[in-house]
């Protein structure tokens, strides 16, 4: 289970382009350049996933939506499957998340958050709603004042701190025992006592590892 999670992080570099465009899948990139072949204008940088979401919101663009789907739907399903639900439940939830993306794309603000962050919140809330049958109240973390000030203070724009490549590299350089507790928290949605049982560690050790790992990640991300 842990090795899977680790492999996912190792793999991630394959799907990420090293340029400023982090998440654009290469196949789509190719497709676009073919489409534009006949035009004399130079092909601009491929659109980010965030830009595709904006197109879905403003133009109800089904091609853009299909591109988002191709990138995210299999990953959302994969992420939900790690919660030990059936394939059927994972597909139902993935469908609900994608329906929400289509219907609520106008609520996504690319200046404030990465699309993957927005999607993972939707997936989390759908999962809790359907599987645990509970409400999960959201708190708006993207629009408070200090958030903007903090980014000036550290010279790292908030949106850049959320950059996937950056976060994945920050996770990679964590000590394995620190990365492990972060991955178990997020991938398996394990409670701290479950992690403690899984790893055979005292609860206090699990908690302090989670805190240290998070603090180190935030340092790497330029939060301090």
């Amino acid at each position: 289970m842990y090795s899977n999670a680790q492999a996912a992080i190792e793999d991630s570099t394959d799907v990420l382009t090293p340029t400023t465009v982090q998440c654009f899948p290469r196949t789509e990139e190719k497709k676009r350049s073919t489409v534009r072949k006949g035009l004399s204008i130079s092909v601009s940088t491929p659109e980010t996933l965030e830009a595709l979401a904006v197109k879905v919101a403003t133009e109800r663009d089904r091609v853009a939506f299909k591109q988002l789907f191709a990138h995210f739907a299999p990953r959302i399903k994969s992420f939900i499957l790690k919660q030990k639900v059936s394939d059927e439940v994972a597909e139902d939830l993935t469908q609900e998340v994608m329906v929400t993306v289509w219907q609520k794309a106008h609520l996504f603000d690319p200046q404030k958050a990465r699309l993957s962050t927005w999607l993972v919140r939707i997936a989390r809330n759908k999962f809790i709603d359907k599987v645990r049958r509970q409400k999960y109240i959201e708190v708006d973390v993207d629009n408070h004042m200090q958030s903007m000030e903090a980014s000036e203070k550290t010279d790292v724009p908030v949106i850049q701190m959320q950059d996937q490549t950056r976060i994945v590299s920050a996770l990679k350089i964590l000590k394995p025992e620190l990365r492990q507790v972060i991955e178990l928290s997020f991938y398996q949605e394990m409670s701290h006592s479950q992690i403690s049982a899984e790893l055979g560690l005292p609860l206090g050790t699990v908690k302090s590892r989670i805190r240290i790992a998070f603090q180190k990640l935030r340092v790497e991300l330029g939060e301090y």
Partner: protein
Amino acid sequence: MNQEVQTIEQAEAPGGRIADDWLIAYAAGNLSEAKSTLVATHASYHPELLDKIRDAESVAGALMGATDKAELSDGFFDRLMDTIDAQEGDASEVIDLSKKPSAVNPDIPQPLADYLNGDLEDVKWRFMGPGMKQAKLWTGENGEKLWLLKAKGGTEIPEHGHNGSEMTLVLKGSYHVNGQKFGVGDLEIASDEIEDHRPMIDDGEDCFCLVVTEAPIKLKSLMARAVQPFIGL
């Protein structure tokens, strides 16, 4: 299916602020309805906690974005578009989706206003004891409860130790307990084992708190025994 969530025994709130491991638990979806509502409301008072939740959610997003792709069943996209088209045809659904989030309430943080779908006046207050009223909001499995407390200034909350563990978030007013003051936005965690837990509401305005209570350990084990044959623990 993983449904185990954090218990109050695992919570710490030094200086009245929830510790980082619980902010991560919130971001990862590891809290019950009662505790997620409490943590979201608590964080709303403290920008540094909001920043941490944002960072933890970004980590979750990056992990999702970097995960291996699962195989989707045949025709998934077409079925998805059919569902979308069917729902677009339904006018009522469209209106419902364009509904604005509830109005900003100056008295209580947005997450709590969302949860109550209103404010502190909209809940059903019941007599709890001299100078005290309570409004029950949610009861979960194992006897976990989310409720609101309204207490008049100068009220001493009677000894209620060994009544299970408690997380108390101050929404208005303030109180003292064992020499420590808890004001607006502060979170107090009182474990099951704590002796002599008698909060004293400070003189003056009414004190409003959002409280999560877990059933006492004794009761919990009783309940566990009662359901044991059914869930096969």
